[in-house]
């Protein structure tokens, strides 16, 4: 048991990194282009959707979460979920309260 098979851990290679690099560059080009098209309410939605897609690619492959332990995956998901709860409750409060005087 004592550590002779320890390098069975997954090593992500240059091929994967190159694919992700091009995906991220494509996403950047796409989001800049989309920002010049007037889509009304959908502009911020699309910008955030593309940003989130890019972030997920970075987390899963550059940060190796795709290959990580269940403990790490669960911790990250729990943390992000907690963050989403906090931000959505806060925004729901501010948007739905008719304080009016701004």
């Amino acid at each position: 048991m004592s550590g002779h098979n320890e390098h069975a851990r997954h090593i992500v290679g240059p091929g994967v990194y190159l694919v992700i690099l091009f995906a991220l560059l494509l996403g950047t080009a796409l989001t800049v282009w989309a920002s010049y098209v007037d889509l009304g309410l959908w502009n911020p939605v699309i910008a955030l959707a593309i940003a989130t897609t890019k972030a997920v690619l970075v987390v899963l492959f550059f940060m190796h979460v795709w290959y990580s332990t269940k403990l790490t995956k669960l911790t990250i998901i729990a943390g992000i979920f907690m963050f989403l709860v906090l931000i959505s409750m806060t925004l729901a409060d501010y948007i739905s309260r008719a304080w009016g005087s701004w």
Partner: protein
Amino acid sequence: MPDSSANIGHSAHDEHPAYLRHHFSSAEQQADAAGFAMWLFLLTEVMFFGGLFTAYLVYRNWYYPAFVSGSHQLNVVWGATNTVVLIFSSFTMAMGVWCAQTGRRRGLVLSLALTFILGLSFLGIKTIEYREKIEKHHVPGFHYSMQSFLDPQSNPEVYAEYHDKPLAPDMARHTELYFSLYFLMTGMHALHMVIGIGILGFMILRAWAGAYTAGHETFVVNFGLYWHFIDIVWIYLFALLYLISRH
């Protein structure tokens, strides 16, 4: 496999590398624990930047015209260039991790050096942007000027692109809030970059000496997590500060 020179000083124990602490049963367990702790730290960073993002979204919702006009003062070309610079730096950092894991010392030094240079390039471009804000008196404080928002045509190159209508003085006042959040968010991001570049400098020296290519690459891997996290923060900053108020 760890090389034999790493075993000096532990002859009383079973063969194990010098970097393996006594309270871990294997090097893999040690690396997993360090990675787990790094993620806990990054989640506190998510909450920290998340608070800033939430403040930005709330105020943007309240003072929408001021935030749109404020955003039009940013240069998308510089913002997009910096996004590309950071994405490339994340790629070179990831390649550095691969070099460390596969024992490529020269490759690691080269990757870290490229990451270092790209990080500095990002800060250089940020400096150009900040200087423009200073020249236009868009830095919040005693010298803040609402001129660009009360009279958009006084700022011809921005006016030519967006044809912004003049804001009423009470709304124009709130552009200062946009720039406060702009400097707070990009400034905190830049501070993380400065810290990261400092650590990169230290790592390049250690990597040159062969510290990370003899089986113990945890420091490089976890620094990589930090660097990629900064990249993600910028991806959102670029979308929220520069892009969503375009068209």
